């Protein structure tokens, strides 16, 4: 099976984010980046499918030069080669614009399967995979925890809400968006890291792909969220804070 995994580089989970001078995005200069969590699970699923059924895993990421580090990490974990969709203007594109860019980069590869995470940890739109399927005109299934190859295509386990699941059968080629937690993530080995340096990483640009349309949806500005409740912050060292909280639980919340 030839599998393309679309991964995104996002600010590290614990990164302190600050609004930049434009008020439209966060200060990027001092940020650390990591592979988007559900994309890491998509990569893991692809690697396991390759181990079982053979084939090739191609990792694809769109973004500025810095995404190269995340691509190398994926190659070190076992992806065979990579495509970097070089674009410094991703933020000016909406979900459809980004998906079209990725779709055009995938199209010449003609893969059997495209995997991506269900949602990014930064923008959280949760749309790229589903739009990709629409643009590539192939079927899709979202929120997938388990993938099994069958004679006619795939049988996948889809997460529904509140602890329910569902099996879905679909033909190939297809797009799946992967939910976190379906597999255990592997670490890159030293050998893998060494090998990654020699693997092919092809770069294509947005203009190579002919994708420069105007966005339909625009992010006009960002702000700190409004508090939904007024929080009493409890001060002091651990012992004092614990004692104060117990008082509150006793006399204000009345559960002790």
């Amino acid at each position, binding site marked *: 099976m030839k599998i393309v995994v679309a991964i995104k580089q996002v600010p590290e*989970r614990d990164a*302190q*984010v600050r609004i930049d001078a434009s008020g439209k995005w966060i200060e990027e200069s001092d940020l650390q980046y990591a592979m988007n969590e559900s994309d890491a699970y998509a990569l893991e699923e692809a690697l396991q499918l390759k181990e079982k059924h053979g084939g090739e895993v191609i990792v694809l990421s769109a973004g500025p030069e810095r995404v190269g580090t995340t691509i190398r990490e994926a190659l070190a974990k076992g992806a065979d080669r990579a495509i970097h969709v070089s674009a410094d203007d991703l933020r000016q594109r*909406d*979900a*459809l614009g980004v998906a079209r860019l990725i779709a055009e980069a995938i199209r010449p590869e003609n893969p059997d399967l495209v995997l991506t995470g*269900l949602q990014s*940890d930064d*923008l*959280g739109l*949760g*749309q790229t995979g*589903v739009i990709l399927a*629409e643009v590539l005109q192939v*079927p*899709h*299934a*979202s*929120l997938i925890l388990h993938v099994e190859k069958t004679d006619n295509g795939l049988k996948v386990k889809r*997460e*529904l*809400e*509140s*602890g*329910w*699941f569902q*099996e879905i*059968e679909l*033909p190939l080629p297809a797009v799946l968006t992967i*939910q976190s*937690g379906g597999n255990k993530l592997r670490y890159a080995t030293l050998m893998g890291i060494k090998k990654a340096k020699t693997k092919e990483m092809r770069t294509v640009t947005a203009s190579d792909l002919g994708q420069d349309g*105007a*966005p*339909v*949806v*625009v*992010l*006009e*500005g*960002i*702000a*700190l*969220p*409004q*508090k*939904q*409740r007024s929080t*009493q*912050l*409890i001060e002091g060292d*651990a*012992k004092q*804070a*614990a*004692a104060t*909280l117990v008082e509150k*639980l006793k006399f204000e*919340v009345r*559960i*002790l």
Partner: protein
Amino acid sequence: MSGILVVLEDRDGRIGRASWEALSAGKRLAQLTGKSLNAVVLGASTEALAAEAAAKSVGKVARIEHPMLRRYTADAYTIALHQFIQAEQPDYVVFPHTYQVRDFAPALAARMNQVLISDVVAFDDGPVFMRQLMQGRLTGNYRHAGGGLCLISIQAGAFRADAVEAGSAEVTRFEPQIEAAAIRTKPGEPFRGSAQTVDLGSATLIVSVGRGIKEADNLQLVKDLSDALGAELAASRPICDNGWLPMERQVGSSGQTVAPKLYLAVGISGAIQHLVGMKGSQCIVAINKDPEAPIFEVADYGIVGDLFEVVPALTEAIKAANA
């Protein structure tokens, strides 16, 4: 039918809570834009659903009916709604941000060269649509540019489900053309993951643990705290993904929804997927080292500090208070 079209979802034969919240968001949008509010239900047999919707103060309720809408598929829903939207030309389509909507609405929008503004929590004049970024650490203000149909989905809990008054709406029917060959996926019957032995929904006290606990071996600290309180132990998704606690202890959009008297969140940053499962709690206490963590936006009491110091101290203080 220009105006605002709210897509209501079938939940076990009834209209789900998230859909009523979306209808309430639609009402607010109608007030903001001066447009009419209408609703639509989809299925193989929609009479009961439509009657439920028509008992609300909306202009029209349309029944999109077709045998192939009996069980949800992205293909059938996308085709049916696309045809309905082409025929009726609404200005806005409002969805509840459910797993089902996430599965097809982005494709439906793309089919019309539009983009869904997903997971909206509020809106303002313009209209400007607000949604969360960076796992709830920031809010983004989005605008639909370029004219044409605007599609949005509404986050669970962001609008009040009971905000739309009773009324008596006209019910219409729409029969989409759906070819069997156009349905590419074969959906199975929904099933429960495992026998649910823990009912967090009825717990009065919950101690819940998140990523901040770092390692499975550290869980004992939190277990000791929940034992001292006589509370149920729960967790955010990553803890269950790692297999440190069983899935049935997970609180959030993919787990259980809880509303205890006390929800004590330990090392949980408060990503929206978690918050939707617990923000209805009567009292929320958060212990987290990051003062910027979104959990503090919903907390009544907060301790900014190292959980590895605070939790054992709290366990001791509770034991002493109970002694």
